[in-house]
């Protein structure tokens, strides 16, 4: 039926607001409270846990006054893995395969801190070669972690170029890790007493070439971002936090250094021979997201500086302690069948020495016992102070492993940093804190 445009409207008059009040009643869920909240411009918005810019499964509850954040409540626990607890039912060596999965962007830091704590309880010092290789891998890992921060942070602000650049370079670092440990992430390569196996023959040249490549590519990030007006507009004066607040909240790492406190555990409480290397601890005073960006760029450069020095001094020798009661026994080699125990080692334990075979069995099935005691070993991870508080009661398993996770502690600063800022700045605030949810929830 054709509609006649000249026809008069039907007899029913248009509804007035008063009519709506009387006749239409919306009911159900929390609609009423939402309507009330809207009426005075205060609303509560749920962001995450499934949200592309909350760095994984982080849930933020935002109290908003119009566009302005009045309160930010982080809600964590969506990535709880129980790793801390699980280490209690595994041997000390098996523990390294678990802890490396907490902060999955800086796996070597977890391994190193856990192993340093175990070694402190055991009272052993790892051979020098192992120590220097650890430093090289740790610093490469710092660069890789900062690259992911740059990549994801850039992507959350809409810059996919930065995202591809970050992951492009990180890939080369992961290749180096894979060549040494067989795994791109979660390596379990650092073991109590040293390393799982020696580095490859081409490790020196390969690392040196990689540092050169990374140093060259740093120019890309600088040219693209340091003076970029959009980058400035999004980062400058966003998420400010001053040194005093940082210290009160226990915030560490680049966030603290961007607020002006030159606190770096590699300098303050050197471990793994960091006192032997010359490097700067960059600081800035603005304490905003842009300062944190500059700090991380400079830290990558300092890491390259450390790696270059470490490559110079890398000594020969074993990579595992001498003590056969502690040293993980296996000797691996490559064959046409892949990687496995070396035929020479097989001949030794299966054909020559019954004692060696018994020792192999004992270490694999029971592991070693660690003298009773409690230690706290902190290392400077890319996110701040990563500390392992490990308790042993003299058995072959840890009694308790507690981790002071920098992501978790730093996350509580998000509220302070976001208050008074716009909703869009929340993304910048969280990105500039660089939390890894695996580290937060453990």
């Amino acid at each position, binding site marked *: 039926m054709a509609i006649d445009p000249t026809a008069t409207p039907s007899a029913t008059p248009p509804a007035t607001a008063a009519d709506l009040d009387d006749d239409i009643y919306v009911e159900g869920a929390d609609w009423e409270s939402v309507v009330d909240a809207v009426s005075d411009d205060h609303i509560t918005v749920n962001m995450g846990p499934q949200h592309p810019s909350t760095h994984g499964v982080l849930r933020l509850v935002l109290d908003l006054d119009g566009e302005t954040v009045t309160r930010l409540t982080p809600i964590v626990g969506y990535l709880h893995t129980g790793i801390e607890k699980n280490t209690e039912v*595994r041997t000390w*060596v*098996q523990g390294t*395969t*678990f802890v490396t*999965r907490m902060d999955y962007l800086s796996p070597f830091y977890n391994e190193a801190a856990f192993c340093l704590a175990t070694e402190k309880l055991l009272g052993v010092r790892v051979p020098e070669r192992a120590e220097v290789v650890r430093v090289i891998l740790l610093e490469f890992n710092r660069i890789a972690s900062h690259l992911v921060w740059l990549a994801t942070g850039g992507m959350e602000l809409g810059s996919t*170029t930065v995202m591809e650049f970050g992951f*492009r370079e990180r*890939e080369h670092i992961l*290749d180096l890790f*894979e*060549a*040494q*440990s*067989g*795994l791109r992430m*979660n390596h*379990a390569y650092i073991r109590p007493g040293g390393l*799982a196996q020696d580095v*490859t023959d081409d490790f020196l040249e390969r690392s040196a070439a990689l540092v050169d490549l990374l140093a060259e590519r740093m120019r*890309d990030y600088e*040219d*693209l971002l340091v*003076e*970029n*007006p959009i980058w400035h507009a999004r980062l400058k004066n966003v998420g400010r936090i001053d040194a005093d607040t940082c210290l009160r909240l226990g915030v560490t790492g680049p966030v603290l250094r961007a607020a002006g406190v030159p606190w770096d555990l590699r300098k303050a409480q050197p471990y793994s021979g960091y006192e032997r290397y010359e490097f700067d601890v960059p600081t800035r005073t603005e304490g905003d997201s842009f300062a944190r960006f500059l700090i991380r760029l400079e830290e990558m450069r300092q890491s390259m500086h450390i790696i270059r020095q470490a490559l110079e001094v890398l000594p020969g020798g074993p990579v595992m302690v001498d003590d056969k009661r502690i040293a*993980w026994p*296996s000797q*691996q080699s*490559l*064959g*046409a*069948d*892949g*990687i*496995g*125990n*070396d*035929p*020479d080692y*097989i*001949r030794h*334990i*299966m*054909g020559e020495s019954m004692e060696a*075979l018994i020792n*192999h*069995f004992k270490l*694999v*099935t029971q592991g070693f016992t660690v003298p009773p005691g409690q230690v706290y070993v902190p290392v400077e991870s890319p996110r701040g102070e990563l500390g392992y508080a490990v308790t042993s009661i003299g058995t072959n398993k840890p009694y308790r492993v507690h981790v002071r996770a920098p992501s978790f502690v730093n996350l509580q600063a998000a509220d302070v940093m976001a208050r008074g800022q716009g909703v869009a700045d929340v993304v910048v605030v969280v990105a500039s804190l660089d939390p890894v949810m695996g580290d937060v929830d453990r």
Partner: protein
Amino acid sequence: MPAAIVTVLTFLALVGLAWLFLTRTVLGRGFSVPLRTMLRAPETAQYPEQPRPVQPRFHGRHQLNRYADGLEKCIGCELCAWACPADAIYVQGEDNTPQARYSPGERYAEDYQINYNRCILCGLCIEACPTRALTMTHDFEISADNYDALVWTKDQLLAPVPPGGEDTPHPDREVRRRGLNYYGGLAVTPPTLHGGSFAPATPAPASRAAQVVPEVGDPTHRKGR
């Protein structure tokens, strides 16, 4: 020839301006990045069509190896299962008999399973194996669309029989006649390949579900861990 000189000077001035633009201005510095990137070799990997080789020590899926004569290297000692932090390995050892010998040792793995739902590919098992029966290959394309397919059984993990060898079991008499020193490193020539070329497509045996968790009181279930 003033015209040529003017051309050259104009060209130089343009190059100089471009250089100044690319190094001194905010916009130019930004644009210098894509220009540089265009001059570099692309780093994109065309993954499924052209797989990139993994590093030599790569921890791919496992393989149970054989000696050159076809005997299995695994002696059913369960060290791999003990070492595994994820409890992903199930080994059921059994005695070799004079008529049926599977491995040079006293025992062999009657059943051997790796549960890739649990495995974290850490490699502690291959470090634990005292006979290099267990190695990790370069094959990583093991994803599946159901949990069952990720429990790999012995027939899937076992390397193919090397040329000139024979499938197990062998009669004891035969093995003794060969007079090989299995652990001396003489017969330990790894006969198999890097993963990838060895793609077992054997369907899991129907009875597998029953094998995963041996029933309590089952006489064939020997005391494990």
